[in-house]
């Protein structure tokens, strides 16, 4: 059979000025068609104001088996959170 269309990952920015967010993937022969297909597949109800598409093969992902060592360093750094610090009530909102 003929060649399969490549897979694209689709990112959409919603109405409220947030970042583009990954919403799913789809097949398309090229980037232009990927955008058009993404419009039809992922924004049928006004979900977006902007679409990015990226070929799935171009994405490098962290490996699930390294989840521990990769993210562990931030686990022990509770002082990065505001709640780590006790501020007296008299000081007011901070």
């Amino acid at each position, binding site marked *: *059979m003929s*060649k399969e269309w490549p897979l694209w990952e689709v990112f959409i920015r919603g109405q409220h000025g947030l970042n583009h967010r990954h919403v799913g993937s789809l097949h398309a022969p*090229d980037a232009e068609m990927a955008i058009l297909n993404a419009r*039809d597949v992922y924004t049928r109800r006004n979900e977006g104001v902007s679409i990015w598409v990226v070929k799935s093969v171009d994405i490098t992902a962290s490996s699930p088996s390294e989840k521990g060592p990769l993210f562990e360093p931030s686990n022990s750094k509770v002082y990065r959170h505001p709640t780590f610090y006790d501020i007296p009530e008299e000081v007011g909102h901070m």
Partner: protein
Amino acid sequence: MYAQLVSTDGLKKPEEMTPEERAFQERIDRGEKIEPKEWMPEGYRKTLIRQIGQHAHSEIVGQLPEGNWITRAPTLERKAILLAKVQDEAGHGLYLYCAAETLGVSRDELMELLHKGKMKYSSIFNYPTLTWADMGAVGWLVDGAAIMNQVPLQRTSFGPYSRAMIRICKEESFHQRQGYAIMMKMASGTPAQKAMAQDALNRLWYPSLMMFGPSDKDSVHSAQSMAWKIKMNTNDELRQKFVDQTVPQAEYLGLTVPDPNLKWNEEKGGYDFSEPDWSEFFDVIAGNGPCNKDRLGARVKAWDDGAWFREGLVAHAEKAAARKAPVAAE
């Protein structure tokens, strides 16, 4: 359901599991999501490919009975609504094929298995849609039954499947409501229109009950799928819920559910009802329903007729890419 007969091997007991399998099961028991690149038992992967693939095929084939009425919808508004609904189903199919693809099978491979009759789709779509009232009954009953099954699947253990289900569920309630709205219109119309609505209910009631799959006592394969959380409820549980939800809706329409044994059972807090004819179900699954040949034929024809177009787009994309590629210095 949309995946009615997904067979797995029997349930493994903890002492039969390898350490990896046990750790995997513990993750699922803790409610963790399994993501595509993580380790999973082969059986889990295979069962999910079958189940998600079957589900995707059902969405795509499910466009056909409704597509049948797009050109003959009674008003422009109804036509626009039906088009939107059928387009949603195409979207549902695409979300699900993508979820299946994360497990290492390609969409075209799944399509090929469908076209060769090696993968199934829901038995419900092998019944004909004879009148406009069927558009009402399909939305109300068929999408209603689908919702019953899909809502709990939002919590399924496989991340991409769960996310696809969440998207789908957001869109399904429109499907059921537009169907019920058609039924309300027809049931409060002329006697002839009301009779059409009743006839649609009569024909689609039992096929809708079959959507949940055979009775639990006959489906030996659910235990492993339930342990893996790729099946969240038993077939009979969901069927009971569906009946309990649907009967009052039929009463509101002034229509009669075609089951002389239907009776409220105070003790169990649900209706007693007749089982569908399971021999008919197995017959339809085996390919002998009223529309099996039509449905599969339409799918294969669409795929074959579209080949030149798919290939043309690829050729165009390749040419455009070659034109853009930097030419080596000469």
